[in-house]
């Protein structure tokens, strides 16, 4: 008994000695993007007691994988509401996974929204179907925005948001901003700067800014001189009344790839 008491005291003393180390390591891990998941009561309601225990015990990725498969099944069965709930849980469990945010946003903004618009059997009213479609656009956008809150340096997510803003919301200012953000990230694609400028060119009042960006790209050389870029510059030259000697030469077709 005496030994157990001494052992317990030693364990507590060890606990006190390692406390600063643990606090330091905890801070380091959080700074490096670990331990970002909030395992709270709403999550417990979503994944059930067993799933919550598993997630708490260090098997978050495994629980997320199982729920992703369930979401995939819901997709095949066209159960969009259930799928949305499952995707939300998966992204809560694995907030650092770009793939989960990306695919969740895509499923909602493109697949679920189109299905909602086409589902005349469940909803005969065209207005209500369009409303449902809009709600799924918003939900898709929410996935991208939430993903970016956890992963602000993900160029891939900024690009997906930009495409959504451009194609579904027709919000060129938001699309230009998102493409520009994507272009500034470490995983940027070469076309994103160009796409940001294309979107700027569509915004009334920002023609000068768009022209300068497009012209700067044009001046980088033939690899940037795509037909759309040349066309947009020409339109803006006309709009802004650029002097003839400062205008670009007509681009030869096929000079860009």
């Amino acid at each position, binding site marked *: 008994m005496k030994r157990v008491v*001494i052992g317990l005291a030693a364990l507590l003393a060890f606990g006190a000695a390692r406390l600063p180390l*643990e606090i330091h*390591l905890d801070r380091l891990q959080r700074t490096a993007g670990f331990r970002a998941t909030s395992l709270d009561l709403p999550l417990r309601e979503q994944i059930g007691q067993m799933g919550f225990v598993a997630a708490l*015990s*260090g098997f978050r990725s495994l629980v997320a994988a199982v729920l992703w498969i369930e979401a995939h099944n819901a997709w095949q069965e066209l159960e969009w509401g259930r799928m949305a709930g499952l995707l939300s849980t998966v992204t809560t469990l694995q907030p650092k*996974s770009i793939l989960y945010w990306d695919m969740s946003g895509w499923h909602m903004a493109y697949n679920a929204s189109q299905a909602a618009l086409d589902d005349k059997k469940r909803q005969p009213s065209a207005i209500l179907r369009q409303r449902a479609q809009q709600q799924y656009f918003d939900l898709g956008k929410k996935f991208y925005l939430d993903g970016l809150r956890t992963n602000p340096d993900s160029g891939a997510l900024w690009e997906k948001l930009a495409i959504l803003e451009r194609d579904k919301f027709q919000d060129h200012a938001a699309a230009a901003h998102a493409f520009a953000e994507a272009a500034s990230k470490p995983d940027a694609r070469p076309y994103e700067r160009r796409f940001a400028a294309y979107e700027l060119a569509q915004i009334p009042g920002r023609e000068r800014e768009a022209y300068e960006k497009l012209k700067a790209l044009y001046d980088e050389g033939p690899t940037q001189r795509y037909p759309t870029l040349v066309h947009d510059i020409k339109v803006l030259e006309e709009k802004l009344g650029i002097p003839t000697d400062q205008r670009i030469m007509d681009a030869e077709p096929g000079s860009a790839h």
Partner: protein
Amino acid sequence: MSSPRGPLFSPTRIWALSVNTLTELSRMKIFYFLLIFALVVIGNSFFMARLSFEEEFQMLKDVSLGAMSIFTALLAILATAMLLPKDLEDRTTFTILAKPVPRYEYLAGKLLGILLLLAISIAVMTGLFLLVLWLREQSVLADIRSQQLPPDDLANAIASVKAVTFNANLAPGIAIIFVKAALLASLTLMISTFASSSIFTMMIAIAVYFIGHLQATAREYWLEGLTPQWWTKPALAFIALLFPDLQAFSLTDDIVAGNPIPFALFTQTAALGLLYIGVYYLLACFFFSNREL
């Protein structure tokens, strides 16, 4: 320095004991769980073939590393919990300790044997996981190559597949799984030195496992004073000081999602793990030194 019983700490004796422990555990057909792991990984990869390759590879990594974490944790707790009671039952302990083998060497040999078992298991599971991942990658690449794509598109497609398959961060992630399992083995060994049966050891170790994953929350609440009642503060302090912070070793979930682990963070996490292992071993020696056998 030598005593009439030989050197104070003999690596040869410890090695002999650890190899013996490993052989003993192998005879208990403990490696059969690797078959279950193989079924999980291979079965999972066939099932996932209907997903996009990015999803498939992500799932494969999630499931494989998750299964690796579960199996090693279970193996560390269950195999270690059985060691001392089995030796006592077989009377092997008496034979060994009657020879000039100090108790701390006996425990070191047992712990090292378990660590060898865990290392072999993780190596086999890692090999299997990487093989399945490589095979799936080759299958996707063959599919892409069979399509008549322009050279630039083909190069981009191949680069995209390769980018989501292997990730250098998987190696430290797997190493952390080993450190966590080694910590659990050391902790279980300590419990078994004063426990009355292997069932008791297992139950306590599993309870510590679950509480250990909540220790960081208890610590945070205790230190930040987020306690509604007066008595919760000492209770939380007790949990924070007594139990290990196992969340500190649950980095694989984020690594598998693509979060890179800086080298300094990896070494400090591993160092904390080694500290736990060392202290639990010393306490095990303390409890076992005067135990009536």
